[in-house]
C-alpha cells in the first residue's frame, strides 16, 4: 500500500530524512517511533504530498506521491502535527468545508460528518467555535477531518498529543477498530501506545531507519530469551533505547530520552 524507497529530504545543509526505505502492506498499523527531530513528521509530509522529497520515491496505493499527487491525496486522510483547524469556524462548518475539499458526494455529507464526529467523540462540541475549544478537542476535530470520507490510508502525526488519559484510550480503541480495513501510520513517542495498537514498529533516528519489524520480531531480535507480554511496555523502552542510543544505554546523547532509558534499566 505504501512503498518508500531511498527517500531523502534535505533542508539546505540539514538532512532530515536519509535514504529511508520501507513498505507497508494493506491493512497494517505501523507505529513511527523516534526521538524529536528524527524525521517522523518530515516523512509523513512527503507521504502526503505536502513537501517534495529531495531524492527517492514514495508511492501510496501504487501512485507516486510527486507525479500523481491528486490520486494519492484522494486516498489519504492526514492529521498533521498541528491540527489544521480554523479558529473562527465551528467544527461542523469546518468538517463540511473539508468534505467539499475532499469532494465527497453532497447528499451523504451530513451523515458522514455525524459519523466521524461520533468516531472522534466531538458530537457535543460540533456547534461551538473551534477557537474556544481545548487543545484536546481541537486535536480530535483534526482527527475527525482525517477520517472524513473513510480513506484507505490514514497518516496520523502524533494523534494523542494534548489528550487526557481517557481520551488517549479512546483514540487507541478507535485505531484498533480502524485496523484491518485501513492502512495506518501513526507517529508517537508514547511507547505504550505503540505496544497496544501497532502491529509493526518503525524506528527512525536522525533520519535513518534503525529497525522495522513486528513487536514479536523486535523482542526476539533485541531481547533474546526474555519473556514479555504486550501489556508490559518496559521492554519497548529498552529496545527503543538500544536502537536510538549509539552503543546502547551507556552512551547517552542529548537528544535521547535518557529518563525513559534509565527507568527501563532501573525496572530490570
Amino acid at each position, binding site marked *: 500500500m505504501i512503498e518508500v524507497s531511498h527517500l531523502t529530504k534535505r533542508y539546505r545543509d540539514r538532512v532530515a530524512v536519509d535514504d529511508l526505505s520501507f513498505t507497508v502492506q494493506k491493512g497494517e498499523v505501523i507505529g513511527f517511533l523516534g526521538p524529536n527531530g528524527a524525521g517522523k513528521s518530515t516523512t509523513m*509530509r512527503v507521504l*502526503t*504530498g*505536502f*513537501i*517534495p522529497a529531495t531524492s527517492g520515491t514514495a508511492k501510496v496505493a501504487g501512485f507516486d506521491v*510527486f507525479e500523481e*499527487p*491528486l490520486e494519492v*491525496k*484522494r486516498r*489519504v486522510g*492526514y492529521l*498533521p502535527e*498541528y491540527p*489544521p*483547524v*480554523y*479558529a*473562527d*469556524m465551528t467544527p461542523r*462548518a469546518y468538517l463540511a*468545508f*473539508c*468534505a*467539499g*475539499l*475532499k*469532494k465527497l458526494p453532497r447528499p451523504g455529507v451530513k451523515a458522514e460528518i455525524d459519523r466521524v464526529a461520533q468516531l472522534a467523540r466531538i458530537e457535543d462540541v460540533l456547534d461551538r467555535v473551534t477557537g474556544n475549544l481545548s487543545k484536546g478537542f481541537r486535536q480530535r476535530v483534526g482527527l475527525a*477531518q482525517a477520517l472524513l470520507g473513510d480513506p484507505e490510508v490514514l497518516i496520523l502525526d502524533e494523534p494523542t498529543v494534548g489528550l487526557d488519559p481517557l481520551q488517549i484510550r479512546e483514540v487507541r480503541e478507535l485505531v484498533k477498530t480502524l485496523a484491518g480495513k485501513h492502512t495506518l501510520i501513526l507517529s508517537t513517542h508514547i511507547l505504550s501506545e505503540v505496544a497496544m495498537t501497532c502491529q509493526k514498529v518503525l524506528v527512525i533516528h536522525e533520519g535513518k531507519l534503525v529497525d522495522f519489524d513486528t513487536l514479536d520480531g523486535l523482542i526476539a531480535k533485541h531481547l533474546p530469551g526474555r519473556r514479555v507480554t504486550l501489556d508490559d511496555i518496559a521492554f519497548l523502552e529498552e529496545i527503543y533505547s538500544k536502537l536510538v542510543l549509539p552503543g546502547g544505554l551507556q552512551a547517552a546523547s542529548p537528544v535521547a530520552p535518557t529518563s525513559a532509558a534509565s527507568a527501563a534499566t532501573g525496572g530490570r
Partner: protein
Amino acid sequence: MRGALAIAKKELNVYFTTPIAYVAFMVMAFFAAQFFTGSVEAYRNFVTRMSPYEGQQMLEQLNLTDVVVSRLFASVGVFIVISAPFLSMRLVAEEKRARTFELLMTSPVRPFEIVAGKYLAALVVMAVSIAIVAAFPVILSLFARGAKGGSAVEWQTVGTGLLGLFLLGAMCMAVGLFVSSLTESVIVAALVSLIVLLALWVVTIFAVAGEGPLRDLARGMSSSEHLMAFLQGRIELKDVVYYLSFVALGLWLTDRAIEGHRWA
C-alpha cells in the same frame, strides 16, 4: 471546481464572521457619503452662483452625473485601492500562519482551485463594497429631476463607472492575493500590496511633470488614468485589457507561488 466553491464559501464565511469586511464596508460608506454630500454641495453652490446671470444655457448643459457621480466615483477609486489590501491580506498568509495551509495542500484540490476559490470570495466582497457606492446615484435619482423631465442621472455613465470601479477592485484583489501568497504575515501582506497598489495609482503624477515617452509610460501604467474613460461613460478596450492583465497575471503568479510549495 467543487473544491474551489468549497474554498470560496469558507472564505466568505470567514469574511462575514470576522470584522475586516464590515470595517472595509463602513470606511467605504463613510467616505463615499462625505464625498457625495461634498459634490452635491459644490454643485448646488455652482448653480446658485450661475443662476442670476446669463448662465441659463450653461446650466442646461451642466451634467449632474458628470459633476456629482463621476467625481464621487473617482474619489471612491482611492478607497478601493486603500481597502483592497486589508481585504486580501489574510487570504493565503493566514492559512500559512495558522498551519491550515497544510490541509489545503494535502487535500485533493489543484493549486488553481485554491486560487480560484479565494479570488472568487474576494471578488464577492469587493462587489458588495462597490454596491454600497452604487446607492448614492440611486439616492440622487430619487431627489433630482432632469431638465426635460427625464431622469437626472445618466444610468449608462453610472453603469460604466461602476464597471470601471469593479475592474479596479478586481485588479487590486488579484495583486493582493499574490502578495498574500508570498508571506506568512498578514501585516506584511497588507503593507506590501498597499505600497504596490498606491504606487500604481499615483504613478500618473509623473505624467504631469514629465514629457515624451516617460509621460506615456506613466499614464499607461497608472491604474487611476485607466479609470477615467469609464467615469466619462466610455468603455475602452485598452483600459479593460489593462485591468484584466493584472487580474490574469496576479492569479497566475499566485497559482505558481502555491504550486511552488509542492516543489520546495
